[in-house]
């Protein structure tokens, strides 16, 4: 990982400084210096990586906050009496606070990457070979994540032009990234350069379709995030009911769909391999922090493989 501590200038400033240098080099005497521009493009790539990582983390934190707030608001709308009963019933089954919060922090760190994975896989792999409800879920989730991902990366990181820094192109150095396809659960290796081209090419589509799924997405995430993070006593089963009510489309979500969602985004990332066991764990409300920690490494290796 890049050590950013030494640098007072943040990634965004470095990006703009680098772009300025590239721009100025076009008018320098003696013609464009290939060597210098190549080196500047390396700095640009490094800064972009750091910037995007920071952006993901920020987006995730914002989402968490928004969703927590949404949950709170919606709780207030519900009959407080019903909830209180549920709490009392389920308190015994729930994991201790400590156990729950640990995976949450890990998830926070991981989620930006899993976002990337979700988006990349949605992009690279055609959604297929999965159960209908699951694919629907995944697709929705994946598509819904796209607008925020692309907007943040394309709109802000590249103020000059849409991914075209000619003669310096982002495709100059294609990093190989290992991604997990959340639809097929297949691990593949893609090239970042290729991804980026697609990213900007479909920016229009993403932005256009951004509106309606947003609410749904919030609800989806809030579902599992609060599940992981909150100190509350809600169990996944109860969550399912709650989710049912708040969906505008009122699609029927059975427990298997929800458990798949958990296994994908929940702390037990070994759901990649054995979704079933995770499903059971999740349903029992026993998020095991140790398991999360154990699978963390595998997930990180699988996804963050520059």
């Amino acid at each position: 990982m890049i050590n950013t501590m030494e640098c007072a200038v943040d990634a965004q400033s470095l990006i703009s400084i680098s772009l300025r240098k590239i721009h100025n080099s076009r008018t320098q005497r003696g013609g464009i210096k290939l060597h210098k521009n190549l080196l500047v493009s390396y700095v640009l790539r490094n800064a972009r990586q750091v910037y995007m990582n920071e952006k993901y983390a920020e987006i995730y934190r914002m989402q968490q906050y928004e969703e927590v707030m949404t949950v709170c608001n919606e709780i207030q709308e519900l009959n407080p009496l019903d909830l209180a009963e549920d709490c009392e019933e389920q308190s015994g089954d729930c994991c201790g606070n400590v156990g729950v919060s640990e995976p949450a922090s890990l998830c926070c760190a991981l989620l930006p990457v899993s976002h990337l994975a979700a988006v990349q896989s949605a992009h690279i792999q055609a959604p297929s070979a999965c159960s209908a409800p699951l694919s629907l879920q995944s697709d929705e989730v994946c598509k819904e994540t796209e607008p925020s991902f692309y907007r943040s990366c394309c709109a802000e990181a590249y103020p000059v032009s849409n991914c075209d820094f000619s003669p310096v192109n982002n495709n100059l150095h294609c990093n190989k990234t290992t991604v997990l396809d959340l639809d097929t659960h297949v691990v593949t290796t893609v090239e970042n350069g290729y991804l980026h081209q697609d990213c900007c090419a479909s920016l229009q589509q993403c932005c256009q379709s951004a509106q309606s799924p947003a609410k749904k997405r919030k609800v989806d995430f809030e579902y599992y995030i609060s599940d992981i993070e909150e100190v509350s006593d809600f169990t996944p089963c109860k969550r399912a009911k709650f989710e049912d009510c708040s969906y505008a489309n009122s699609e029927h979500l059975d427990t298997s769909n929800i458990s798949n969602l958990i296994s994908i985004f929940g702390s037990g990332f070994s759901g990649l391999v054995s979704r079933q066991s995770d499903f059971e764990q999740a349903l029992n409300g026993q998020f095991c922090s140790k398991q999360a920690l154990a699978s963390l490494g595998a997930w990180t290796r699988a996804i963050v493989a520059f």
Partner: protein
Amino acid sequence: MCGVRAGGGSNDVQWCFSQVKGAIDDDVAEADIISTVEFNHSGELLATGDKGGRVVIFQQEIENKSQPQCRSEYNVYSTFQSHEPEFDYLKSLEIEEKINKIRWLPQKNAAQFLLSTNDKTIKLWKISERDKRPEGYNLKEEDGRYIDPNTVTALRVPVFRPMDLMVEASPRRVFANAHTYHINSISINSDHETYLSADDLRINLWHQEITDRSFNIVDIKPANMEELTEVITAAEFHPHQCNTFVYSSSKGTIRLCDMRESALCDKYSKLFEEPEDPSNRSFFSEIISSISDVKFSHNGRYMMTRDYLSVKIWDLNMENRPVETYQVHEYLRSKLCSLYENDCIFDKFECCWNGNDSVVMTGSYNNFFRMFDRGQRRDMTLEASRESSKPRQVLKPRKVCAGGKRKKDEISVDSLDFNKKILHTAWHPQDNIIAVATTNNLYIFQDKVN
């Protein structure tokens, strides 16, 4: 020769100021910025090239040949305009006249020959002396006016008479149109017939006599320029093996190629690379690992590379890591951000060996230059400044305070002048005489004569 022999390590040598060449005023004309410095094979001649396309050659004159201990001075021998600014109309590009490199040819006769190159064109110059001139023409006056033949009554034979020494430089060959990208290196082969020229992506082999064609021996241009990941930064022939050359890359690797293997040396014989220390990773890791200069040792067993922060000595028989690494200015590692903003991080420092390969030298900022004694494992920092330029004044070693309490005589990192940089240095092939180029001045230092 004088009694200044390349002795042991730098602790034996006390460096003294000898001369400084160039304008004194602080207002530096861009054309006067020195861009290359090179001694010839005997050390008698010292050539400099500047941004204005001029070459100035200094000749060593022994003050007093009879005395064993004597000082030698370098005085201007010849000055000529090597390259002019050009304009490529097809690409709408201006071609700078700045001299990137000068290399001397081994002397074969009375005349001296050197190769000088700018970004696109290499020229072979002949520097010859004329100290006699014919006098007594029948049809010409002394001042050159023609005499009316009708007034000539007697004939005489013109004779050569001594005249003031005149040094003439004439271009003998022009090697043009062979490089699409900017030439960064030229290197003369030990076969005394061929030489190579390297640009960002290609290396060409020339015959010294033939200007209308060259052989391409290395080509790293990818089929799709978007896949470009590295460029060639320097290249040099082996001092003794005429089939071997090396080239360094912007990724910090050096490739050794053998021309006997194939016509196109894209596949290297040896790859020299040191793995990166992951704890040092930063935004600028790629920039500071780019090699700015590569030089073989005189004995041909080692080569030295210079990257932004260090000098590395490689044994040609060991590819996986250098045998020695010297930190030139490690205190700059925490300043890389600022150095990136002001473009200093792109400065290309050169390095050089002394005559017996025991000491290496390279430049730094604030007009400091550094010497590393390989045998004694000592290093020294000296400064080229007008303040320390009294005749025969011994140079005092300098020290940079990286942090914490600054001792007396130390200079803190924040007070270093990054506009005063020493990029080009040269060491006399036999003696302890060094030429150090600041922005527009050339300093000559010598071993103290006891």
